[in-house]
């Protein structure tokens, strides 16, 4: 069989043959077929899985011929033309309805309509009520006309696809919250979506397409647009973030990309896509301000508290010296307590100050050896005898200060909270695909899982201040430093099992500077 039912149905759908007005497409062709072939009847019929129907005809036929009895099925089942000079002499047709009844067809010639997939989906036929034939030229005409039908259908199909695409594109463009526009080389707007148009007052919207609209803006803004447009034409692309006062009175911050493109005739345009980032920029600015305010506050507060505290400390020690002979017993103890509290407050202020400085002047990433870095930190730690620190000999690319801050705090905690006279701290590093996986493991008393969350909070200490000196800012500082690099810290520990702090630190590139 030269055709496949399913494919044929698809073909008919593909050509949108049920569209209104499709028949008019073919009227000229069938008219010309009757004339060119000198026969009184002509028709174009299509067939799908269930039925065949006539798209255009000259002469009277039932508008829908039942397929099984249909004449055109003769041709539709073929890939070649069919000619029956006398239908009463041909077994295929002698009992057909339109042969035995009106209009009593006696002659039939049909050319199949074949698409580019070699599927026959219809036929162009001519008929006569007396036995007849087609001469060579008439046969050529009929074949040519059949080809024309297929071409018309192809064009129809492409039109359909184009308009579908156009509708979809329009829907996307109109519903896109970004401002989309295209300008020609005279800086006149050739296209603008609704988001763009909405920034003009309603009465001015019909004066956007075809205009530069520059007169609607302040001079310096208009100049800036023009400069960007020119640059985009020259360089092919520009990206800017700009604050613009629009003709409708709104002031928005836009992130705009302008890209040059050329149409099929080589004429240059720029396509502008502008995203409204007003809220985002505003938030970023406010966030930056409040962050710096907070840091500044912490800095000034701790700084200004330090001076009077130092004065108190000094004055107290002078009194202690001057009154050494008088001070005894409880008074002496009270003096010790005062000095102790002053020291504690001093440490708290120092840590607060350090905390507020975390993330500032961190320096650029550089190649660092983990063992060397850890050793450098240990020197500042006052490592008690009996404690051993084992460190992997691994090279890392990280900023120096934050790495040392993290190592110092984790090691110092491990030592400070250790319950034995001796201990082992292991610092290991695994290189993951995108991250460094650093672990600091101790063999100290461990921390109950219920407390794991608490230890990262500011001013949290797990032991009374009198037992272990600490401001409770150490781990908070570590976490703050890591957050700056999109890293993280977590803990695995239980009572009696030591503790492992796990630091995930995203790898960084060595800066060129």
């Amino acid at each position, binding site marked *: 069989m030269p055709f496949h039912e399913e494919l044929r149905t698809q073909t008919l759908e593909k050509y949108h043959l049920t569209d209104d007005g499709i028949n008019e497409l073919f009227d000229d062709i069938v008219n010309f077929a009757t004339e060119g072939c000198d026969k009184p009847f002509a028709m174009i019929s299509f067939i799908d899985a269930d039925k065949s129907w006539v798209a255009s005809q000259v002469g009277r036929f039932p508008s829908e011929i039942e397929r099984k009895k249909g004449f055109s099925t003769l041709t539709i089942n073929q890939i070649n033309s069919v000619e029956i000079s006398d239908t009463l002499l041909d077994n295929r047709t002698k009992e057909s309805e339109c042969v035995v009844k009106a209009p009593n067809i006696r002659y039939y010639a049909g050319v199949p309509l074949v698409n580019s997939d070699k599927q026959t989906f219809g036929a162009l036929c001519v008929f006569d009520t007396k036995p007849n034939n087609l001469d060579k030229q008439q046969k050529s005409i009929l074949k040519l006309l059949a080809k024309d039908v297929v071409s018309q259908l192809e064009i129809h199909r492409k039109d359909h696809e184009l308009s579908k695409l156009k509708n979809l594109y329009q829907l996307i463009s109109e519903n896109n919250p970004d401002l989309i526009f295209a300008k020609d080389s005279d800086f006149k707007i050739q296209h603008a979506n609704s988001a763009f148009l909405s920034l003009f007052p309603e009465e001015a919207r019909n004066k956007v397409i075809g205009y530069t609209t520059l007169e609607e803006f302040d001079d310096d803004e208009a100049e800036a647009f023009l400069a960007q447009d020119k640059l985009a034409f020259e360089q092919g692309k520009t990206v800017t973030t700009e604050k613009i006062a629009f003709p409708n009175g709104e002031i928005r911050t836009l992130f705009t990309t302008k890209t040059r493109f050329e149409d099929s005739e080589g004429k240059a345009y720029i396509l502008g896509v502008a995203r409204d980032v007003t809220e985002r920029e505003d938030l970023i600015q406010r966030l930056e301000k409040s962050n710096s305010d907070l840091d500044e506050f912490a800095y000034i507060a701790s*700084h200004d508290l330090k*001076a009077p505290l*130092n004065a108190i400390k000094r004055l107290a020690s*002078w009194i202690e010296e001057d009154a050494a002979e008088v001070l005894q017993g409880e008074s002496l103890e009270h003096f010790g307590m005062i000095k102790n509290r002053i020291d504690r407050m001093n440490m708290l202020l120092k840590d607060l100050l350090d905390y507020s400085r975390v993330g500032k002047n961190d320096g650029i990433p550089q190649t660092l050896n983990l063992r060397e870095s850890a050793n450098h930190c240990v020197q500042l730690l006052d490592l008690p005898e009996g404690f051993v620190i084992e460190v992997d000999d691994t090279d890392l690319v990280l900023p120096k200060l934050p790495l040392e801050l993290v190592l110092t705090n984790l090691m110092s905690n491990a030592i400070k909270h250790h319950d034995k006279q001796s201990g082992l701290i292991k610092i290991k590093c695994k290189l993951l695909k995108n991250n460094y996986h650093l672990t600091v493991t101790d063999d100290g008393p461990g921390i109950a899982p219920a407390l794991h969350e608490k230890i990262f909070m500011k001013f949290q200490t797990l032991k009374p201040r009198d037992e272990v000196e600490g401001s409770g800012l150490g781990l908070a500082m570590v976490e703050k430093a890591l957050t700056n690099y999109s890293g993280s810290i977590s803990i695995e520990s239980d009572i009696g099992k030591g503790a492992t702090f796990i630091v995930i630190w995203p790898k960084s590139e060595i800066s060129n500077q």
Partner: protein
Amino acid sequence: MQQPSVLIIDDSEIERYMLSHQLKKIGVSEIVQKNDGTSGLEFLSNYTQNQQQYGANFPPAIIILDVNMPIMGGFEFLQKFSELKAQLNLDICQILMYSGSDDPQEKVRAMQYEFVKGFLIKGESSTEDLKIEIGVL
């Protein structure tokens, strides 16, 4: 040996008090206190009158200068002082910075002036330190 005279410029009363106390302990008794850069500068500018009043103790051999002060801070004072030096004979004056901050940048910046001889950090400098600094000058 005659003890040098000292001008203290600091906006904090307690700091001035404590400095005077420490200075007296190491035998410095000629002390003038000013609470900001402007009044300190004024004191130095008032050259003839002060020379009559203080005699050999003017201009002061040592100026102990706070960094962080309202109106005119320590660094502005240093600049103005170097300008004043071109007009008046202040060669004898040597400056000791007295800062509440341990920012090393601050020290570097101050030590660029040849008349700045030292950098003390508040609360961390003992009477002994002060004695050494002044003795060296």
